[in-house]
């Protein structure tokens, strides 16, 4: 994020797109609601009528995969009506003429047709967004998980640059990171092209620096991304796969493909539970959970905060780093660390943005990177002196909208969107073990627009076979009025669900993200009756759980009893 999480409250205009904030980043969602109550303006653009759409000043229910067209349409209005920040553009950007020329054709009418929204709403959104120097864009995977995800992000950044919405409190372009430490994993160089702090592996100077720091010769060739590793295994190029704390069998696109690959490679896994991926693992190392270890996480606003040990580790489980250290030594690379802090003190020497941080300094409120020296206060807001790329000049990129091939195949007439829900987290290995969460959202479902449902003769609790080019899954139906006709929605947390359907082959050309948000599917009603049985099963499981499995939790028992009395089921 270029700005802070709570900074959203300082904005005059909040533009939320491709983020169901109240579900995926709930506390951030609370801030949006607080801001709205304080009289701030809210624009929401999302194919799903998310809860924030209900309180938005302007809601644009765009067709999945059309964000670029929307941004271009808004820019068209901004230029037509002279709402841009001419001074900022002159001082801090490059490429304005090309951009202007390109968005000419994206009149609100043209963009509105692509996005499936009223042209006047695009006009109103553009005016509202451009009306302030405190306009805050918040986006999440609804923007990035597209085959043109990079374009989507760039087009939002165009909007912010042209209106001078960078480098101050309450503005910026702010990706909400889904996982607690995505930011940190990227910062630390868990990327095939980057050493820590985004220093490129193919840059000879950088290579020389790391060779000196680590005392070995390093490989200058770009590595494989997650999505490219799977085919590389199938092509026999990769023989050993080491997976730390992830569950590719569920989280990666096109599950069948992935299963073959995991089966084929020698698979070393490190985790707190056995999961779907473990079925293919040859070695599994038990590790400590976050509550049992010391270390640091970097949150979505680039704030590095302490993780502290508070619980006793289970069995023989070890720190992830301890296992890695042991393997490194066995591979002939001698190293030794006594505690996580030793590693932190090493990494900050090669990670310029973390150089000024120490565990002692992170006490309290943590620090935002970049924090280059030990007396530097950290950097909550980026780009205060103009964008950092290319000496204070931000590149405006003229980006044309492209239609996802998934939407062009008439044999798969529906568009399926996948997303997070409030209660679950990723592949559920953690959340499902909190019983109350398990009982709240025990199994997969698909949401269907009510007109489509009428046509397909579907009602709540019916079952639908959803098929894409890659595979199919059978799920329970929920009829909703939050989707446009032709669009369906499914949570991505469940095994044998959404990822059976998604596409691993067509990836974003720049960063290899699969197009999770736009999946072409066809559907077919399958014989019903099962929903009721499954619901009953879960209810019985819930009651049995409260009664037998955890009798010390007397309150659960009361809850179950009360439930029975009231005759309330799911």
């Amino acid at each position, binding site marked *: 994020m270029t700005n*802070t999480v*709570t900074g959203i409250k300082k904005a005059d205009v909040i533009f939320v797109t491709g983020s169901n904030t*109240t579900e*995926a980043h*709930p506390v951030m969602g609370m801030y949006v*609601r*607080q801001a709205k109550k304080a009289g701030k303006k809210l624009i929401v653009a999302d194919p799903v009528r998310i809860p924030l759409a209900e309180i938005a000043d302007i809601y644009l229910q765009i067709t999945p995969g059309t964000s670029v067209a929307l941004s271009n349409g808004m820019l068209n209005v901004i230029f037509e009506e002279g709402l841009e920040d001419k001074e900022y553009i002159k001082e801090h950007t490059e490429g304005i003429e090309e951009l202007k020329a390109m968005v000419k054709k994206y009149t609100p009418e043209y963009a509105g047709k692509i996005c499936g929204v009223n042209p006047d709403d695009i006009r109103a959104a553009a005016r509202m967004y451009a009306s302030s120097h405190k306009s805050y864009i918040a986006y999440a995977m609804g923007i990035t998980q597209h085959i043109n995800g990079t374009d989507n992000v760039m087009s939002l950044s165009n909007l912010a640059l042209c209106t001078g919405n960078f480098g101050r409190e309450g503005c910026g372009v702010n990706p909400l*990171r889904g*996982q*607690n*430490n*995505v930011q*940190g994993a990227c*910062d630390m*160089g868990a990327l095939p092209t980057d*050493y820590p702090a985004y220093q490129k592996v193919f840059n000879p100077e950088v290579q020389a620096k*790391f060779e000196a720091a*680590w005392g070995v010769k390093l*490989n200058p060739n770009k*590595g*494989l991304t997650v999505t490219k*590793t799977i085919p*590389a*295994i199938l092509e026999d190029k990769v*023989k*050993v796969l080491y*997976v730390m*704390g992830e569950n590719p069998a569920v989280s990666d696109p096109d599950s069948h493909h992935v299963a073959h690959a995991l089966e084929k490679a020698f698979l*070393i896994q490190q985790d707190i*539970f056995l999961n779907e991926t473990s079925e293919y693992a040859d070695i*599994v190392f038990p*590790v400590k959970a*976050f509550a049992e270890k010391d*270390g*640091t996480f970097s*949150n*979505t606003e680039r704030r590095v*905060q302490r993780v*502290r040990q*508070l619980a006793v580790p289970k*069995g*023989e489980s*070890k720190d*992830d780093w301890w296992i*890695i*250290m*042991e393997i*490194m030594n066995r591979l*002939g*690379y001698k190293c030794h660390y006594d505690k996580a802090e030793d590693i932190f003190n090493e990494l900050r020497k090669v990670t310029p943005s973390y150089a000024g941080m120490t565990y002692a300094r992170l006490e309290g409120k943590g620090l935002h990177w970049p924090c280059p020296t030990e007396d530097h206060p950290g950097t909550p807001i980026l780009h205060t002196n103009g964008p950092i790329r290319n000496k204070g000049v931000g590149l405006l990129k003229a980006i044309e909208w492209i239609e996802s091939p998934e939407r062009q195949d008439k044999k798969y007439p529906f568009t399926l969107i996948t997303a997070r829900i409030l*209660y679950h987290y990723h592949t559920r290995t953690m959340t499902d073990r*909190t019983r*109350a*969460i398990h009982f709240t959202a025990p199994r997969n479902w698909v949401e269907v627009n009510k007109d489509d449902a009428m046509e397909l003769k579907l009602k709540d609790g019916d079952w639908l076979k959803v098929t894409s080019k890659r595979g199919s899954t059978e799920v329970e139906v929920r009829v909703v009025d939050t989707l446009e006709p032709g669009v369906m929605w499914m949570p991505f947390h469940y095994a044998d669900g959404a990822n059976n359907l998604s596409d691993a082959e067509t990836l974003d050309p720049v960063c290899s*993200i*699969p197009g999770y948000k736009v999946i072409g599917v066809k559907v077919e009603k399958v014989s019903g009756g099962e929903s009721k049985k499954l619901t009953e099963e879960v209810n019985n499981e819930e009651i049995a759980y409260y009664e037998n499995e955890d009798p010390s*939790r007397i*309150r*659960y028992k*009361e809850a179950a009893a009360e439930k029975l009395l009231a005759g309330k089921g799911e």
Partner: protein
Amino acid sequence: MKLKFNGREYEVEKGVRVFKAAKDLGIDIPNFTIDENCHFNAAFDEPEDYEYSLKDMSVVEINGKLVRSYEVEVEDGMDIWTDSPKCKERRKEILGKVVSFHPLDCVNCVKLGECKLQKYCEMYGVKEGTDKVSYIKRPKDMSNRFYFQEFDKCIRCGRCVKVCKDKVGVEALEMVQDGKMRYVVPNLDAKLWKERIGKDSPSGKEKVMAIIDGKVSMADSTRCVSCGNCVSVCPVGAIMPKAQNNFREWETKKVVTTCTYCGVGCQIEYLVRDGKIVDAKPANGPSNEALLCVKGKFGYDFINHKDRLKHPMIRKNGKLVESTWEEALDLAASKIKEARDNFGPDSVAGFSSARTINEDNYLFQKMLRAAVGTNNVDHCARL
């Protein structure tokens, strides 16, 4: 500016209220309505003529006069007494009234040790109620999966309603009045009331009665997102987590750490007993301002789950079986070495983790780059 608290001189900032100034100096002024981090004060939502008003709990004596400490700003040379006999008297009066409608069953209450009512009653020697209060008794509402409400213990401070409305922003609770007494009830849509009791804007009493009759419950609230912030702010045992873990606050150690779920990075204070987490509360972190969501507040059961892996495992004859660390580490290293030496370093690949700490991520990529010699390292950020 300079002023005096309880006879001692202090230097304080201009423009703050007496309550906050005292708090910042570590002087606790009793109160029920202000949240621990001074993010809100539910007293402002209390009607002025409310019989069982809690507003005066926070009185202080300034120049012989009692004033509410959150209402007045500090002034140069102020002589403030936070626990003078007059203050004590006033607080005793309020506590006496409140206890008149609060069950005196502290020994059996799970909040014991943390409960503000119990603490103040002990402090001011209040043992029983002073009034005869008639109020509607209510059964526990167990219908939410994460917390339960035992509103007979409710002291009507309004904090839960306030946090839900102003901080969470969903207004799942409301405070209604019947006669002299106020009640917290789920805030339901007119349509639902109509459906359940045939009236779209029932009176306070009708709402409370509908709950007693089992016609509505918290589970009917489509607004509640089970974030548990009402649980965290309740000063007594009226809204409690269902996962009780049967602990007493004084047996626990408190440690603040960062939430392990999403990227907001909320700070959570865990209560730990014998090395096990028994409860979680929002800490006043910079990105969460003393709020949490359902996962942060209630989603910690996985840590002590019986399925946690306890031993290294190796696949033998198609099945994963327990092994020693030596055996598993040696095998992993030899397989990596074999691939590296026979097929080149790029025949090894690793998926690092967006879930684990920076230190693990750093060392993981260093292992692949420095000890194996490949850049085949990535994580699921994109997924």
